[in-house]
């Protein structure tokens, strides 16, 4: 969980392009979240992981699992 690593100051392994991309995205979202929700700074890594897993599930619910976007069900798309 790259965002939790960044929030708790741990270093991430960035050997692959894909990891570098995830890191760049996570870094920006983390900065925004910390600015908007300062109480995140008081959470430990386990609490953060649990919270972020919940956010991830919610995002997947909205954008994939329960999405009404018909294109997601088109096999060739």
């Amino acid at each position, binding site marked *: 969980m790259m965002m939790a690593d960044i929030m708790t100051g741990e270093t991430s392994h960035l050997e692959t*392009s*894909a990891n*570098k*991309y995830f*890191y*760049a*995205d996570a*870094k*920006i979202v983390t*900065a925004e979240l910390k600015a908007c929700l300062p109480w995140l700074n008081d959470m430990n890594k386990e609490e953060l992981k649990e919270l972020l897993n919940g956010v991830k599930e919610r995002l997947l*619910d*909205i*954008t994939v699992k*329960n*999405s*009404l*976007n*018909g*294109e997601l069900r088109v096999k060739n798309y």
Partner: protein
Amino acid sequence: MPTVLFDCDTAIPERKRHCYIKEMGEDTTQYLPSSDISTIPGTLSERGCAYCGAKLVIGGVLKDTIQMIHGPVGCAYDTWHTKRYPSDNGNFQLKYVWSTNLKEKDVVFGGERRLKASILEAFAEMPNIKRMIIYTTCATALIGDDPKKIAAEVQKELKDIDIFVVECPGFAGVSQSKGHHEFNISWMRDKVGTWEPKITSPYTINFIGDYNIQEDSYVCEKYFHKMGIQIIAHFTGNTTYDSLRGMHRAKLNLVNCARSAGYIANELKKSYGIPRMDIDSWGFEYCKIMLRKLGAFFSLEDKAEEVIAEEVEKWKPKYDWYKTRLPGKKVAIWTGGPRLWHWTRALEDELGMKVVAMSSKFGHQEDFEKAIARGTTGTIYIDDGNELEFFEVIEKVNPDLILTGPRVGDLVKKLHIPYVNGHAYHNGPYMGFEGAVNMARDMYNAINSPLMKLAKEDLRGG
């Protein structure tokens, strides 16, 4: 609120699923307008065709390429000089237009001979130009011409030239979006990987989905170059044919217009493992995010911050002037698709404006998911809006300004409502920090110009 049927649409109730007003607590898993489906016969659609999507939006921007339009001359004429994408070589792509000028005789007997003669004539007239794109149109697709066969024949004969064929007849698909798709996928299949670019930096990108509208590309390019980043290819602002053949060598695809060019970024990811980074390049805060993301990817964070500091210092005072004068102004965004979600937060969060209505001509449901997620409650969201719906929305929300293209722009001017060209801009560039200032200035000038008030008056008096 469930999707809504406007009063003007009572005769075409199918329009209900295309119109939505967001209410508090709702998300896109409950309601999402239908989009990228056929226009309902009888509505006054503002959409373009697949050929328009391939030529006017993407291919026609290339600055060193003959654009051979295989069809009646109207197809060529109507996509010439209607969008402002300059280049740094004297605007070759804006000065000329090429057409096979198909006639009834060719429809009966076939247009391939005319196509071959036109290709040879164009290369002979412009001996310094060695690259060409051939576009099919409704007529030439219907009669079954085979432009790929002709292109191969000419390539054999002339040897030092290269031709790309895009099969984009206007009737294919439901809007210009199909033409974007065709161009992306065909270019990837036929041309990417056939040319090797000279690599001058360890940090290389393709800047995808930016068409140098009124010099947008130059603004972003300046930032990237200051960070030491090499742009392998612009897809397709101020770009060359061959640079697009070398897209496989970039380390990152930076995607601005995800609707018209997200496909090629996806294909490059699948075939070459190049990550796709989606960004917004309009608005001060979005620009900061774009540069910071780019900096984080290449470990160039310091360089990104230097560029941001320099640009903010230069442009913030001007931006702040407009920030105190635009809050509360009601604006409608009636453009192609992605600008709905690119612009709404920038206008609301940065300038304090209220986006009261959004309409997309060719956006897909993915675009509406983004627009509705970023948009606010009470806002009207419409897919493939028609003229009568625009009239009704204007009555409902009474906007101070409409960001739209010249077609709908002329319509709203007749109602004495100011509009700013949301496609090709009034006085751009609109991208980047300076672009945000330009856009704010054009909106402010449009809203405060006395022209629309004067236009309402009957000068004859009495």
